[in-house]
């Protein structure tokens, strides 16, 4: 098992290099750089821009810049953000924390509802609850995230029950810790719902169809023939086997947490990585873009690895060596 993990981590390195190489190349295709935009500002002298260019190493040829950047990454130095005037890694750490918080809360929300509902729908197949959940699931899968987020903001603005965006109230700094916590929760509710509903719907269908498949299997009939209760037949025997494909999906969601939340963050003014990435892209803040890409790639690879490891624990037939 450990050998498998080590091998997977090692094999991720060339993958990451390939991804960064491609991204770097793409960013180079863009006409101009961050300083070009700065030079449009008449208040900044051309000398200063030239100086900055040397400081940031933007005067070097592309491959040198890439290798320099790569060498920095090895030492956990992701470079410097032009726009924010701070090290990329610090900026990303701040923003990624906000995104992870949102991702985590919506994942918990989605799984917490999808799994029981999916089981209920499968066990009572073709009942009213199955039909209702399946209609809702189809709607959930089909609603575009941006549209849903706009609807949520619209509802919040019209009712005034919940904040329409952001992560903190303006007076957050002056609140007592428990008030701060409640404030954060209030701000978290809508983005969590919006992000969670899409996940929830797909997941519920998946739980349902997996469980229907295993409920039909011979070993569930064999378990019933042993005299196990219906509960044990469904939960221990059928669900125990239905869970394996879900674990793979779980890994995928983990991997997708950072980029999956981007639209919601942008509409709902959540100070996460998605907004940061968008700003960085439009500002040609190259090292910030690269840093975000690397982090989300690592998340993606890590999520898949996590799924493989979990799968090995839940399914004795799978052995890595």
């Amino acid at each position: 098992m450990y050998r498998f993990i080590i091998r997977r981590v090692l094999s991720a390195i060339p993958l990451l290099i390939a991804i960064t190489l491609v991204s770097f190349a793409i960013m180079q295709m863009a006409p101009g750089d961050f300083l070009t935009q700065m030079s449009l500002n008449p208040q900044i002298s051309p000398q200063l821009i030239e100086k900055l260019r040397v400081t940031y190493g933007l005067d070097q040829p592309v491959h040198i810049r890439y290798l320099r950047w790569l060498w920095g990454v090895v030492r956990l130095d992701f470079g410097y953000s032009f726009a924010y005037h701070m090290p990329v890694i610090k900026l990303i750490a701040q923003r990624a924390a906000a995104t992870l918080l949102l991702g985590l809360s919506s994942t918990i929300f989605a799984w917490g509802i999808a799994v029981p509902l999916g089981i209920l729908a499968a066990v009572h197949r073709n009942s009213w609850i199955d039909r209702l959940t399946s209609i809702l699931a189809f709607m959930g899968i089909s609603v575009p995230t941006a549209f849903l987020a706009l609807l949520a903001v619209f509802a919040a603005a019209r009712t005034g029950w919940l904040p329409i965006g952001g992560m903190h109230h303006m007076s957050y700094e002056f609140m007592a810790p428990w008030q701060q916590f409640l404030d954060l929760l209030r701000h978290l509710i809508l983005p969590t719902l919006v992000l969670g509903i899409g996940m929830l719907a797909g997941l519920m269908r998946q739980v349902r169809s997996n469980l229907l498949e295993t409920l039909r299997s011979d070993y569930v009939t064999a378990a019933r023939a042993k005299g196990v209760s219906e509960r044990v037949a469904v939960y221990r025997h059928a669900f125990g086997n239905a869970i394996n494909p879900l674990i793979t999906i779980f890994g995928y969601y983990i991997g997708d947490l950072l980029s999956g939340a981007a639209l919601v963050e942008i509409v709902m003014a959540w100070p996460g990585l998605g907004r940061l990435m968008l700003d960085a892209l439009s500002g040609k803040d190259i090292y910030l873009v690269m840093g975000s890409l690397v982090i989300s790639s690592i998340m993606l690879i890590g999520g898949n690895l996590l799924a493989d490891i979990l799968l090995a624990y839940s399914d004795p037939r799978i052995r890595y060596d």
Partner: protein
Amino acid sequence: MSLLHINGLQVHFQTEAGLVRAVDGVDLELESGRTLGIVGESGCGKSVTMLSVMRLIQPPGRIMAGSILFEGRDLLALSREEMRQVRGGGIGMVFQDPMTSLNPVLSVGEQIAEAIEIHKRTSRRRAWSMAVEAMERVSIPDAADRAGDYPHQFSGGMRQRIMIAMAIACKPRLLIADEPTTALDVTVQAQILNLLRDLQAENKMSIIVITHDLRVAAQLCHDLAVFYAGRVMERGNAEQILSNPGHPYTIALRNSIPGFSSSGERLQTIGGNPPNLIDKISGCVFHPRCPTAHSSCSDLSPVERFVSDGRSLACDYHALGEM
């Protein structure tokens, strides 16, 4: 009193194509300590009958009529909870494919112990050691070490032994084996048949073997019931039926098996194809394929009648009557 008495059982399946009368009025009787073979071709209702005994018919199937008396109690009238006690406790069941009927994510020891825990109400540890004992009883080498292994780590024959251990762990009075050797190789099949025979001698339990292979039934069974199109054609003592079959279907079935007639001789066949159970056949269900059908066979459904001690036939023109 007989151990199992099935009376007028009817099981229907509502499918897209129409109503399938999978079991259409079946009577069966099994004495304690005996082995009953249920033979017939695929789709004749033999498995459905036995799943009905376990009350494991899943929708769209439904038991429409009949009674199933096990030790004098009607299983169809039991509450769910009472029925659960019968399953695995009073009646154990072994399925055809040991590959798919063992849960792949639970160790075999856990799966056997689960049955014991339910019916014997003992501690986990005690259940586990009883599970190991059950594995030893079905001759699995190094049972204590292998109880923690998972199904995929066993060969096909060993898996079927584990299925049997699971079914007999709580010492049921009746063991139902649904095609227990069909998925296995010939040499392994012989091992399993021997095992079943030994277990019966040891435990004095009754066994019902469902099989499409008359020869397997001949090896193992005291009694025989021949199914066709959801009905029983003939039942009685196995040796008598095989040496002197009475129903035209049984005769044809026996004669169509290569090895019964000596080599070189042409096999006798049953013309046509097995009936589609959606279309209702008037009269005797076998008459469209029966070589000796009379004109009245298409009108009157024959009543099962006793011909000699324990033999009964559902044919109005059976050959045994003249004896």
